[in-house]
C-alpha cells in the first residue's frame, strides 16, 4: 500500500512539474502536449516490453527514411537556442543518427533479400 502511494506521489510530482513548465513556457497546443507528457511514462513501459519481445524473437526495429529538411530544422532550432540562452554550440546530430539507423535498416533488408535469393537459386 505504501509503495503504491509513493509511486502515485512520484507520478503526481512528475505531472505537476512538467505541466507547470509546459503551461508557463509553451506557446501553442499546450493542452495536448501536457497530455502527451502525462502518458509518456506508460509509453516508456510499453516500449520496454516491446524491446524485450523484439530481443526475445531477434527482430530488429524498422526505421523509416529521415524526413527531408530535418538537419536544416535542427540548425534553425540551434540558432534560436543560442540566441535565447547562449552557451557552447550544440552540433546538429538527430538527422545524421536517423540516416545512419535507416542505412542499417536498408543493409539488413538487403542481406535478407540476398539470403532469400541464394536459397531460391539453390532450390532451382
Amino acid at each position, binding site marked *: 500500500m505504501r509503495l503504491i502511494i509513493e509511486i502515485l506521489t512520484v507520478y503526481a*510530482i512528475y505531472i505537476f512539474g512538467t505541466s507547470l513548465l509546459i503551461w508557463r513556457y509553451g506557446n501553442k497546443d499546450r493542452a495536448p502536449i501536457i497530455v502527451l507528457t502525462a502518458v509518456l511514462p506508460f509509453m516508456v513501459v510499453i516500449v520496454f516490453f516491446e524491446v524485450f519481445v523484439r530481443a526475445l524473437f531477434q527482430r530488429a526495429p524498422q526505421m523509416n527514411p529521415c524526413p527531408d529538411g*530535418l538537419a536544416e530544422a535542427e540548425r534553425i532550432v540551434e540558432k534560436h537556442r543560442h540566441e535565447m540562452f547562449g552557451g557552447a554550440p550544440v552540433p546538429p546530430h538527430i538527422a545524421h543518427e536517423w540516416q545512419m539507423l535507416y542505412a542499417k535498416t536498408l543493409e539488413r533488408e538487403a542481406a535478407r533479400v540476398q539470403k532469400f535469393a541464394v536459397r531460391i537459386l539453390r532450390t532451382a
Partner: protein
Amino acid sequence: MEIRDIYFHEMTIDHFGAFIQTNLVVFVALVLLPLKWLVVRVLKDPEAEAVALMSVPEDICYVALGLVMGDMVSGNGAFQKHFAGSPNSSIDKCLTVGANLAVAILVHRLSQGCTAYFRQWRAAEAARAKDQDSDPRQGSLQIPNAGDNIKRLMVRYLGHFSLGYAVQLAIVLMWLHWVAKVVAGA
C-alpha cells in the same frame, strides 16, 4: 459545535498527521513542490520558475541528506539502531552519507541534461512560432517541411526532458523511501 464534532475533527487531524509521518515522501511532495512554485510565482520571476521546478529532485535529495545527517548527530538515532547489529556500524553510516552524495551527483548530472533538452524545446517552440507567424511569400524559413520537422524536434526534446525528469524523481524518491523507512522504524 458539539463535543462529538470536535472529537472527530481532532481525530481527522491526528490521522492525517500519522499518515504524513509514515509517508514522508508524500509529505515532501506536498510541501516542497507547491510551496517552492508558489514563492517564485508570487515574486514574478519567470526564469527562476523553470529553475525552481527543475531543481525539485535535487532538493528532495538534500532533504534526504538532512534527515540522514540530522539523525546521525543525535546520540541514539534511527540509523544508530538500524546499524546496531553491524560490526562496522561507523563505516555503514559513512557509506550511507556517501550513497546520498552519490545520488545527489547522479541527479545533478541528469538535471544538467534535462535543462539542456528543456532549453532546446523552448528554442524549438520559438522557431515554430516564428515559422507560423512569418509571411509565406517572404520565405523566411526556406527549408522543406519546416513546420513538421520543428514539431518532430519539439516532441523529441520534450520527450527526453520529461523522461530525464521522471528518472530523477524515481531515483531520488526511492532513496528517500529507504531513508524514511529507517527513520520511521526508530
